[in-house]
């Protein structure tokens, strides 16, 4: 599955990065991911179910996330499937974050963003 090098997947689409961020703390099911993303968007509705699952499909395909074989016990209903980051997904998320950090640093240096200590 390592047919694409990590750098080749960059930059990630905003939705894909948001999903990876949502899964950074551990496995989640689709609805939780959506809630997490939307919560971080500050209440504004950012992610729709259709958009989410299409993005999930791409991430599964790229092996950045995987589906858990068994459900974490005692949670939610039968229809829920849980996803978690793969090692590769984590690497891609880190690479994307540092790419964005570099960009942000540049933006600061050029005074596009207010410098906060």
């Amino acid at each position, binding site marked *: 599955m390592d047919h694409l090098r990590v750098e080749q997947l960059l930059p990630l689409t905003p939705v894909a990065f948001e999903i990876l961020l949502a899964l950074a703390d551990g496995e989640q099911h689709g*609805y939780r991911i959506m809630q997490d993303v939307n919560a971080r968007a500050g209440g504004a509705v950012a992610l*729709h*179910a*259709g958009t989410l699952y*299409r993005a999930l*499909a791409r991430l599964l*395909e790229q092996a950045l996330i995987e589906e858990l074989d068994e459900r974490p016990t005692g949670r939610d*209903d039968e*229809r829920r499937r849980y996803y978690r980051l793969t090692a590769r997904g984590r690497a891609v998320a880190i690479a994307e974050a540092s790419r964005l950090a570099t960009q942000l640093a540049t933006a600061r240096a050029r005074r596009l963003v207010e410098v906060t200590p």
Partner: protein
Amino acid sequence: MSRRGPVAGALLAIALLAYPRAFRARFGAEMRADFHTARGQSLGQVLAMHVANGLAERGAAMRRWPLWPNRQPHLYEPRGRRAMFWENLRSDIGHALALAWRRPLVTALAVLALALGIGANSAIFTVVNGVLLQPLPYGSASDLVMIWSSNVREQKPVNVVSPANFLDYRTGVEDLVDMEAFASFITSAQLQADEGPEMVLTVNTGLRMFDVLQRQPVLGRAFGPGDENTVVLSHGYWQRRFGGDPGIVGRTLTLDGTPRTVLGVMPGDFVFPYATMLGPDGFTTRTGVDLWSAWIPERDPFANRSGQIVRNVHYLAVVGRLRTGVSARTLDTRLATVAAQLEQAYPASNSGWGTVVVPLHEQAVGPVRPALLLLLAGVGVVLLMSCVNVAGLALAQSVGRSRELAVRSALGAGRARLVRQLLTESVLLALAGAAVALLAVQWGVRALVALAPSTIPRLSEIHPDGTVLGVTLVVAIAAGIGIGLVPALAASRPDLRDALQDGGRGAAGASPMARRLRSTLVIGEVALAVLLSTGAVLLLRSFTSLLAVNPGFTPEGLLTMQVTLPERVTTPAARLAYYDELFERLRAVPGVLAAGGTTRLPLGSTSVSTTIDVEGRPLPDAELPEVQFRRAVDDYFSAMQTPLLQGRTFTREDGPTSPPVAVINEAMAQRLFPGDSAVGRRIRTGPNPSRSPWTTIIGVVGSVRHTGLEQAPAPEMYISHRQGPPVAPFLVVRASGDPAALVETIRAELRRFDRALALFDVKTMLDVRAASVAPRRFVLLLVSAFGLLALVLAAVGVYGVMALVVGERTREMGVRLALGAEPRAVMRMVLGQATRLAAAGVALGLFAAFVLTPLLDSQLFGVRPYDPITFGTVPLLLILVAAAAAYAPARRAMQTDPMQAIRYQ
């Protein structure tokens, strides 16, 4: 936090239909669960977003449809697309094989039809590949060109070159690595062997020719500087005559009385020259030479007269090798400058003479290109027709299979999946056809080569190779896809409910789409058959009008042969006496009406010409008219039955000591003495006419077509053998009965007369004529075969469809009959439908033929591309064939038992 109700659920279910089926299967449950727990979004917004996302995903999935295996894992299939592709393919192939096994007859028919179409294509393509596409057997053959002289004023756009001009061309241009000449005719020479004299075919070849061609001998060496009186043997002759003896190099062969040293043996694949390289007059039916004789202009008595290389006698063919980066066009321009300088320097011999450069490949195979491409087009149409037929078959089957396809569809196979399955089936069929075809292609090619006239160059170089294999596979796959698309289109939109409710009785009949496709196929098939038949009939009419051409003599009842007088008969007087006795013996053979001879046999040998000077019309040397030149031996004109039009022919009194006389043909009389009597006029001949004696014209005979039946007769003059007896004439013997029956008698008689007389090439004149039209016959034969095949295929197509139609309409026919319709009316109805389909096809085919027959022009003779007879009869023929093919189904319709038909279903 309101859970959404059942109405919203139903609306969601509808919205989710926007997603691809597989996506729905994988994520549908999650999306439904989310839908019911979600809040904050309005129902309309959620549904609209789902539809938008679903359509977007559908678009993406369509773009990523796995037509080809790749390493990307599949969207919804963790094991990846690659696995899925092969798994699908495996199951499709398995399914197709099972299906084929269940219907062995239909499968065998389809495979056979495709094998026929594909195999014929491969065989013809093998010929095209070997003759037209493969490089000639010379090193870097694409750099080789031929250089000809050209004189537009004398209507000789491409002409052989004179020795002096050749030498000046060679020193005059820098664009060539080298340039070399060879005599533009193949000479038969007499080889003195222990068993007696034997004939060998040789061509006088310049010393650097093998270097220019970049080919070296496999044994010994090629000609080098100063190699006078040497020969190089062809591989075939070395094997045939000397059993491949490696000690042959250095041995001496006595050719025409001159000892020649054998320098080497050329490789087996080396062919030089091809007959087409001998120039416009180099017409020959010989396919190869036995040996090459060293040719040095200074030593050639023909080229070097009184210490000077001649400039006004043209007989050389010239090959040059271009320097890298120089084009034939550039060379053409440079040579034109040289030719212009020569024109100024030698106006007497060179005025009006330019040059023309032809790439060697074009020179060698150009003349047969139109005929071969025509065959390729014809066989392509045949393949198209067999594809249409098999597509019709597949379509008929897919109608019967609509239930199976509907079940598969209901079980979740998408449209793409069904199309792929049908394509897999048809491509498999086509590949099976190709496999059968490839098994037969070697045999087919051998048959083609055997059938092909020897005048087609490079026949010996034709054999199936990797290119042929590749092209066959590509053609097969293309045919398979083409065939599969038709039923796929019709069947991949099965009406599920209808097909399933039909309960498997299988008699539901075709969908309107399938019906339309079926009619289209038949129309297309008839159109293709019209196209091919039109071509075949045009060629047939050309061929018959060609054979109807009067060649200027009576070919029936004529036997021809060539002889070479023994070496001991040296003086002209001795030769005359020899001929007198020879012809006396010949005439005494029972069944012989007349016997004569000539130096140039019409339709069977090369020609030779001379410049002439007409008394009272002084002209510069370069403007002297040129006429064909032959000797008439003994009773030539009466043996040939060439009519005497004016004056008299030769008699015994026109001997060596009497004043020189000549007989000319009608074409020459009209060209030189229009509106005036030629008899009694005087002419002088030869490269330097002023040094020749005056010759009196004593008679005019009918014109003879020498080069070919389609070529108008050229001006021609004959002199009597008594005023110049030849050494190796052709003999012609007029028989009272079948000339072939005389062969053994004459052979025996001549052997009794003189064992040392070499006799060869004994043929009837009809065979000679047949050989001269062999390329046409070859093309005609094949195109006619294609045409017949097309008719059969069209008939099968019409029959198949009408049988289906009748089968489908049995119930309707039954009702009609029960209501009192005349059985004949029912039959007329079926025949009418078939005829209407055929008429549509005929119209389409006529249109195509109208557009395409002008391309045939080069192959036609005595008939125009828009020949009204052809364009009138072919459509009629096709409609008759269609009606005949529909007759059996129509009878069946007429005999329908109303009761049974209605009870059925």
